[in-house]
């Protein structure tokens, strides 16, 4: 009971603040000029991004450099965690070997349900990312949904099942690098034809084969999807190495 006293005080404070302060705040009745500009120009207009989804067009077109640096911050974080778990070639090979008392995952029921759900997750995440310029969603959202699929496989089968089917840490890092390189190249392409860095229209075609692709937005979304999903997967694969294996490596290094 004693533990609930701070919570009750907190709730009373919040209700009091809401009751006394909220009526005094000024009401926002109209759009701000900047917001009105984005709403009017994201699909129609002279400074258009040719995307019906305003959030994505702000993220990757009007405020593109912000998102570029955000992405670089995320990748510096992933590089930090990769550095913490770094292993040399021999140790990496050894970490792929199954331990002696390894038991084969969970039961058949869980494995078959996981198989169905992983396919569903892949489809949904790809649709979130590749429809990012049409419906809510985008590269980061799709990529983080994609990263749930290897997580489920690690939980239901094991990390060795992923590695036997070819998705090991090195491959994940290669995919991540392809994604980053793609983002950088798409950002630099407009400079070749005399535009600005990360410019979208009219350098990239707004329609490909009759489908609305919103210029560069679909490329950015796709590469970000690849990079975020593969980056998270690499971190999960490293974290899923049992602690015993790391302890063994450390002991051996201390002996040498």
């Amino acid at each position, binding site marked *: 009971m004693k533990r609930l006293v*701070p919570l009750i005080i907190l709730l009373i404070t*919040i209700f009091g603040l809401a009751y006394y302060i909220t009526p005094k705040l000024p009401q926002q009745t109209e759009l701000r000029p900047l917001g009105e500009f984005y709403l009017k120009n994201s699909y129609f207009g002279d400074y258009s991004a040719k995307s019906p989804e305003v959030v994505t067009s702000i993220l990757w077109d009007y405020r593109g450099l912000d998102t570029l640096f955000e992405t670089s911050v995320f990748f510096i974080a992933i590089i930090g965690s990769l550095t913490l778990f770094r292993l040399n070639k021999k140790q990496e090979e050894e970490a792929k070997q199954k331990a002696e008392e390894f038991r084969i995952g969970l039961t058949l029921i869980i494995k078959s349900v996981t198989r169905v759900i992983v396919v569903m997750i892949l489809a949904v995440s790809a649709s979130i990312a590749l429809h990012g310029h049409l419906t809510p*969603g985008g590269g980061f*959202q799709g990529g983080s949904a994609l990263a749930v699929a290897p*997580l489920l496989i690690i939980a239901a089968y094991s990390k060795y099942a992923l590695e036997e089917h070819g998705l090991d840490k090195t491959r994940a890092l290669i995919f991540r690098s392809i994604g980053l390189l793609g983002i950088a190249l798409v950002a630099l392409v407009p400079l070749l034809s005399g535009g600005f860095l990360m410019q979208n229209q009219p350098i990239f075609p707004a329609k490909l084969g009759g489908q609305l692709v919103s210029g560069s937005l679909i490329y950015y979304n796709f590469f970000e999807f690849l990079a975020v999903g593969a980056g998270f997967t690499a*971190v*999960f694969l490293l*974290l899923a190495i049992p602690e015993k294996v790391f302890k063994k490596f450390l002991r051996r290094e201390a002996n040498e």
Partner: protein
Amino acid sequence: MIEIHLLMLLITVIIGLIFSYLAIIEKDSLKAIGFSAVHAIAYAIAFYILMAPDIVLAYVAVAVGIYSALLIFVVSKTERYEVV
């Protein structure tokens, strides 16, 4: 109609507040991770009521799935109970 939405927003945000408080004072780390996942679900509903579907898509995947899983990995590598 807007009153119903504001009431739903109030309820979900208070549920989130209560569960985040429980997650802070809990000594068992696994239970605290569960509380934090419930808090994330409540806040995802709040973001949906506030008409931010982009945030909801990223928030559900990261805060319920990836964040909880990372913390469970970390707990499995260290200790479960918090000793003061």
